[in-house]
């Protein structure tokens, strides 16, 4: 934690950056919230602990052209690679303070869980994939545990009609607040398809059949781009298990194309390339 503060102070005083985005304490006194530090004397407010679940990389999209320091966990760092790959941010405009992380806990307003978040339990990325300054000791290279898609498998095990009922029930609750979109680093469209009036893809009526289009395409637009920070699910006021949709695609993208989003900056997202010889069970 002190390391982060010192580095932030150094960056700000040397004017290497004009703002450091990190974590501060929330008003409930127990959880954390994003913190924008502009003044060196402010750095003492910076914290880092098990409650720092936010993926701050989203904020880089508002700071194009401005030098910014940012605190990232390993999962967040993958989002940075995605944004670099898509030329949304410039590497030389971002100073990345990577934090070694062995998982964050489930938090809600004024509640800090004991358990690691589910995603952290199967996560084997404990060191950021990209950083300028590393906080903490990189752990021993443990053999990467196989990705655990238990939650996804649970849904896959259901019958079609069960799945349909399951999602309709959830989509029915959706109030289209778009918090899931607003929090997602991968969602930076100038105009989201759901806001588009012409062509009108999604009607104004907040109803399951409209919401279904929203959620299906939201997930699909993130196919091969979602690095699994699960912010969408965390912020959903209606407890819609959005991560299931993303995880499903992460799983299939990995199985079909052997691709994992954001592991490096260069690799082209799977829908931006192809293999002539692959069949993918189509046209056979």
């Amino acid at each position: 934690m002190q390391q982060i503060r010192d580095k932030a102070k150094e960056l700000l005083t040397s004017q290497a950056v004009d703002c450091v985005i990190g974590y501060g304490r929330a008003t409930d006194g127990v959880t954390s919230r994003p913190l924008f530090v502009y003044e060196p004397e402010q750095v003492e407010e910076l914290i880092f602990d098990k409650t720092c679940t936010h993926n701050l990389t989203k904020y880089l999209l508002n700071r194009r052209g401005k030098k910014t320091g940012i605190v990232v966990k390993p999962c967040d760092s993958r989002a940075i690679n995605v944004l670099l790959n898509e030329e949304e941010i410039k590497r030389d405009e971002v100073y990345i303070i990577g934090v070694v992380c062995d998982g964050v806990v489930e938090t809600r307003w004024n509640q800090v869980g004991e358990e690691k978040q589910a995603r952290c339990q199967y996560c084997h990325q404990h060191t950021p994939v990209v950083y300028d300054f590393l906080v903490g000791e990189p752990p021993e290279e443990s053999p990467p545990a196989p990705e655990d898609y238990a939650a996804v498998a649970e849904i896959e095990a259901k019958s079609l009609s069960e799945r349909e009922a399951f999602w309709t029930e959830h989509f029915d609750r959706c109030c289209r607040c778009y918090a899931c979109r607003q929090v997602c680093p991968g969602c930076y469209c100038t105009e989201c398809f759901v806001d588009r009036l012409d062509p009108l893809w999604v009607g104004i009526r907040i109803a399951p059949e409209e919401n279904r289009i929203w959620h299906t395409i939201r997930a699909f637009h993130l196919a091969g781009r979602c690095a699994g920070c699960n912010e969408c699910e965390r912020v959903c006021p209606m407890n819609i298990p959005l991560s299931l949709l993303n995880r499903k695609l992460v799983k299939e993208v990995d199985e079909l194309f052997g691709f994992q989003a954001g592991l490096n900056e260069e690799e082209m997202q799977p829908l931006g390339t192809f293999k002539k010889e692959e069949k993918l069970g189509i046209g056979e």
Partner: protein
Amino acid sequence: MAVEDFQPRMVGFLCNWCSYAGADMAGTSRMSYPPNIRIIRVPCSGRVDPLLIVKAFQQGADGVLVAGCHPGDCHYVEGNYYARRRLALFRLLLEFIGIDPRRLCVEWVSAVEGKRFSQVVTSFTEELVRLGPRSEVQVGA
């Protein structure tokens, strides 16, 4: 509704250079097939945006057919390769949210495969009849 008198509604996105021509060929050689399909002409199977597919399903389509040139024969060299990836993945997502993947049929039909086209449409129609109508929740009010 009894299965036998259920008439599925299907939308077919056919690439102009192979499959649409294949459908023309089916016509020229009078190879009849069920009338349920409504063909939409697109330049390339790679032009088909998943949004158009979900939209068709939301409107009430019982099935969507996307047909393009055989791999390697794409008029635009690579279009169908991208389509293949996109649609293979998208079909899995549809299945996951409870839309029967068999309702999204992706086929390669060349300009000379009139017979094949009529077979594809016929078997797809029969498949959809077997699957029966889609539930109201999916189609909406």
